[in-house]
């Protein structure tokens, strides 16, 4: 695990139509690192992930993946360059089986799909036991597990996670974070956007605080956790 930067945004400006949501955001993720992005509602956290993934056009600034410029690439090209994105909601195919969901996660992969699926199932044994079942019947937590598993099918360099704990019971939140931690320990870098700031910061090594579409603070997660402003604004201290 070296300290090479695998994902970087440089002064990224984007938004929906004329409305700018990000007004210049710079974040970076090193190889194998887990980085948290926290901030109040409307700070542009989810927009940042969409822009990185090419779902929103960059008005200015850019996105570098493994040193190569991927700004303006379609999602189809971005996934082939080693990026996976798990949206916050509607992140599974409800009428497909669990196994088919994973196959779709590996759509651009030509070979080794079966081997990779076995690896992913080892991380999510509870999904492996039900792989032939339709996804529509799964509980919220299990759906979130499946969404993570789908995102891992291409063995991405960086996994973008948009509020994986949203809408889950406290017990399930713990289970999801534990699973994300294991994914990271296996070598996948993670960029984690979270409303659950305290949990996200205790899980990650570094973090960014976004406010109004700009970088507000960044640094070691432990120092952010102890930061007075962060504590006052997001941790309810």
């Amino acid at each position, binding site marked *: 695990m070296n300290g090479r930067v695998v994902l970087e945004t440089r002064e990224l400006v984007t938004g929906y139509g004329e409305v700018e949501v990000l007004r210049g955001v710079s974040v970076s993720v090193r190889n194998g690192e887990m980085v948290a992005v926290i901030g109040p509602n409307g700070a542009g956290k989810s927009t940042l992930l969409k822009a990185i*993934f090419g*779902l929103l056009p960059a008005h200015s600034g850019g996105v570098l993946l493994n040193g190569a410029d991927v700004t303006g690439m379609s*999602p*189809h090209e*971005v*996934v*082939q360059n080693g990026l996976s*994105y798990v*949206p916050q909601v*509607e*992140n*599974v*195919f*409800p*009428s*497909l089986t669990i196994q*088919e969901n994973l*196959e*779709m*996660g590996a*759509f*651009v992969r030509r070979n080794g799909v079966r081997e990779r699926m076995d690896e992913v199932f080892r991380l999510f044994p509870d999904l492996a036991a039900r792989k032939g079942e339709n996804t*529509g019947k799964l509980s919220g937590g299990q759906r979130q597990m499946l969404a993570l598993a*789908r995102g891992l099918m*291409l063995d991405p360099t960086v996994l973008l996670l948009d509020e994986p704990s949203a809408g889950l019971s406290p017990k399930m939140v713990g289970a999801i974070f534990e699973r994300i931690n294991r994914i990271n320990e296996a070598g996948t870098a993670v960029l984690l956007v979270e409303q659950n700031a305290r949990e996200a910061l205790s899980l990650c090594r570094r973090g960014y605080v976004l406010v109004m579409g700009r970088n507000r603070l960044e640094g070691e997660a432990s120092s952010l956790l102890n930061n007075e402003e962060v504590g006052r604004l997001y941790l309810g201290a």
Partner: protein
Amino acid sequence: MGRGLLLLIVVFFIWAVIDRRDAVVIGIVEGSILALGAVGLTLVYGVLRFAHFAHGDSMMLSAYCAFLLLSGVVTGNRPGVDTEVLPITVSDLPSATSEIWKFSFGYGLLVAMALSALLTAGVLVVLDRLVYRRLRRRNSGVVIFSIASLGLAIAIRSWVLIVWGPTPRKYTTVVRHSVDLPFDTSILADQLFILGAAITVTVLAYILLFRTKLGKAMRAMADNPELARISGIKTELVIVLTWALAGGLVAVAGVLLALQAQLDPQLGFVLLLPLFASAILGGVGNPQGAFFGGMIVGVVQAVVVTFDFLSPGYKFSVAFVILILILLIRPQGLFGVRQ
């Protein structure tokens, strides 16, 4: 309420099988044709998210394509006008028109049907490039898509009218033989062929949708187009495949329909209502549902016209009644999940 509706349908079927067996047989034959059309319709809706009003007329066009390939006739059937015929047709193949078994046609019809399937698939893909893809790039709303398809439906019908005229046509004019079936029923040999062909093509479509990567991608896109894009699925490729598959299904349905009844330019348009009723009954976007929806609508139509108090002219209003009932009671369809 959905369970009640399903129970009602089951009771109706049991009664119909006991009391109106011949009508049920006809209904299954007609239902299998509807099912083919409805599966294509539901797939187009699922992947492209609009009601494809040109579906019935595409069916009619493909039936005329097969007619052209078989007969080579390129003129209307008007008095005083000589019939022009293409120099080469499928019927020129060695003994292509000699009747197989008790059927009214030779293997030429199968060749024409296969070629028509390819042609129709091509036509739908080209129409997508010319019309719908432009609308997608402009992010047009669903109403614009549906109205565009309605325009194409009228254009297709008018074009067929201009070329072949309004008079009904047939693939063959020989006497049709019937076959005895168990339980004291009989059926035309041609209808047995229709049923067999429809089931074969449905099985092929099922294998494509549930066993191949691209088929699964089609279902994934029908489920959640945004997530399909995020997963790296080439959405434009899936759209082309969807049109091609819908075209193949529509063509087989169209040829079988012309074999069951006869060819005329109104053939497709009058089927639009039963087709939509079938697709909605099965849950829009659900291919298995559309198949059973087509079968149910076909049988109910065929049985209801045997009622003494109803004129057979009300046949298509049956589909309308089913459509209204299902939209009122269970809009997600018999096999759909409430969202």
